[in-house]
């Protein structure tokens, strides 16, 4: 597990940005074209369309999405995405998008990668308003979209 820690330390700046607010990493042009009026008015379908421009999405087991079955704290739910994919000049993972299907603002994080990233990996914490699916949507440099989703339960808890 030590390797992962060192790796994360290297990624520290990216992680911090993502927590502070994801729009900083958005593709501005793409955003402008499809943006709704209010910042919290995204529906899941609209958000997906804004990212893919309507292209087909394939569900893929190449994406390893790690989320807790039950959130310890809905305000900071750890999410890790690793894509089992080459990171070469001609063929790499261009973007990892993390979405929370039923949040007011469904787009939690948009991370742009280059072959220099070395590995298609991103970890952050997101806020979940209630029990829902967390989605990792991934774009390859060849313009394909793949995704995977996992349910996270958000509960007030209760029994011991």
């Amino acid at each position, binding site marked *: 597990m030590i390797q992962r820690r060192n790796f994360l330390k290297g990624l520290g700046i990216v992680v911090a940005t993502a927590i502070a607010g994801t729009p900083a990493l958005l593709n501005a042009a793409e955003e402008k074209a499809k943006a709704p009026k209010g910042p919290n008015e995204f529906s899941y379908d609209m958000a997906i369309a804004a990212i893919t421009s309507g292209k087909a999405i394939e569900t893929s087991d190449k994406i390893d999405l790690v989320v807790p079955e039950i959130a310890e704290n809905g305000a900071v739910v750890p999410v890790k995405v690793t894509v089992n994919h080459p990171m070469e000049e001609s063929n790499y993972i261009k973007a990892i998008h993390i979405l929370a299907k039923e949040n007011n603002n469904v787009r939690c994080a948009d991370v742009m990668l280059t072959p220099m990233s070395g590995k298609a990996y991103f970890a952050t914490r997101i806020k979940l308003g209630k*029990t829902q699916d967390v989605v990792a949507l991934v774009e390859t440099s060849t313009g394909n979209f793949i995704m995977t989703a996992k349910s996270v339960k958000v509960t007030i*808890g*209760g029994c011991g």
Partner: protein
Amino acid sequence: MEINRRDFLQIAVALGIFGATGTNLFAGEAGKERIKNMSFSDIVSFEPKGKVTLLHICDMHAHLKPLYWREPSTLISADTLVGTPGFICGESFENYYGIEAGSLDQYFDTHGNFEMLATKFGKMGGVAHMKTVIEHIRKERGANNVLLLDSGDTWQGTAVALKTGGEAIVDAQNYLGVDVMVGHWEFTYGKERVMELIKMFKGEFISQNVIDNDPFSDTFEETIFPPYTIKEVGGAKIGIIGQSFPFTSTANPKKYTEGWSFALRHESLQEYVDMLRGEKKVDAVVVLSHDGFSVDQELAKKVNGIDFILSGHTHDPSPKPIIVNNTVILIAGSHGKYVGRLDLDIKDKKVAGYSFKLIPIASNLIPADKAGEELVEKWYKPYNEELNEVLGTTKGLLYKRDTFYSTFDALIGEAIMDAMKSDIVFTPGYRWGTTLLGGDQILKDNVYEMTAITYPEVYTFDLKGEAIAKLMEDIADNVFNPNPLLQQGGDMSRLTGASYTIKIAAPSGKRISDFIISGKPLDPKKTYRVSSWGGNLQNAGENLAKETPAVYEVVSDYIRKKKVIDIQMTSNVKILDYDCGCPKAGAKC
């Protein structure tokens, strides 16, 4: 697999114990003869196998002394789960395991004939009696060939545990010779105290699923405790991986474990299993777990290569092993009622065979170890005056375990409602506590046995009707979700001042109907005065009362005032899907 306890019970059956429910099978001279016939050697009889013995205890909940403990008369879950081990009780349990009415097994494993059998067989558990059994096995097998493994929920549950900050119980574990443990309620002493107690503990505290959650810490994402240990025992190398309770931070106040993250973490568990088998070349992989019996049955589907899971948390007695994906899963009841014995035959660097038995700690049939009695006396002495106070007496049975309603909880709810003048009281559906027989005195110690937690505050606050309904749905989903991984292993919160109807099979958020508060249908817009303890509900409320008395004092005051306690056995919850409390497989009654 050998189940010699069955054999000796068959002798009891041959002697004429045919169980007509409600008849006193042990009346008269013939009955005395039957009890006399059961001896210590019957209880510990076991056909040994191989050279290695693993002894397993779980969920003792700090009960140093023997107690009565009645198993549930209602244990309801999703229709796909009822009737399977972890979700059987009473008659469905007896049918599943072939248990005879009137037997010691019926007394230990079910609620059947409980009061009658209690007067005959006496109290259960107690460290002095457990020690006698453990030492008997160590002597038989050779002390170096035996490990004692503890699945946790050991440090909390009684007054001596609370008042000594867990120290009395660690002392008892050292006396029993616990080699390895994991935790859950242990964590409610707070991080610092947990670390102090681990220093006092002579065994090892392990967990692969508790990790540092503080991004600014040097040990971010590293395990807080050693994730595993390797023990050389009986000429074999046994790898033991720890699983503490995965939902500690949602089930108990977060403040006790701030900066630590809990989860099932089956991915990293698989990595440790592979590492122990590969690099470390162990002969057997054991997971010592507080996940819960049903969660561990799911875990065994996800993780390959585990030989044994010694489970805990859900308090199930399981006389026979469950086998899932070549993993053998065992669990040893609760409250010190049983010691599980697992013999392993290791050949060619792997498990060639095993035998298992749950040994019932019947305190009348197992002599107490003297040093154990002295240990109990030593820790109780400073508190005897307070704890032995007779608060009152109970007319009927006071018990804890049940999915929806239990008499001791009804008493707690009544006491809180009386003191706080609230409309509705929530009492947590913990699975630990005690049992008192009709006519018994209620001691202050017994009240602590139901309520001894480090956060005993009774909170009183306002909640809208719609919030109450939503909370109950949320709690119901934690108990009845058909996916065991989304359950948290407790029972429903108990309500006082209210009643409701439930359809277990209904979708999440739509299970509860006919919700009545103070005799009238729940009004979503109305504001109700709510009291609760032992949970997080107050966080959802408004207008929180400044007064937050300790629940054990509120209950003690009420019993002192009433003197005689008379709680009805009838539940305030109507179940639509089932006509009985202990359905069989296929959800049949």
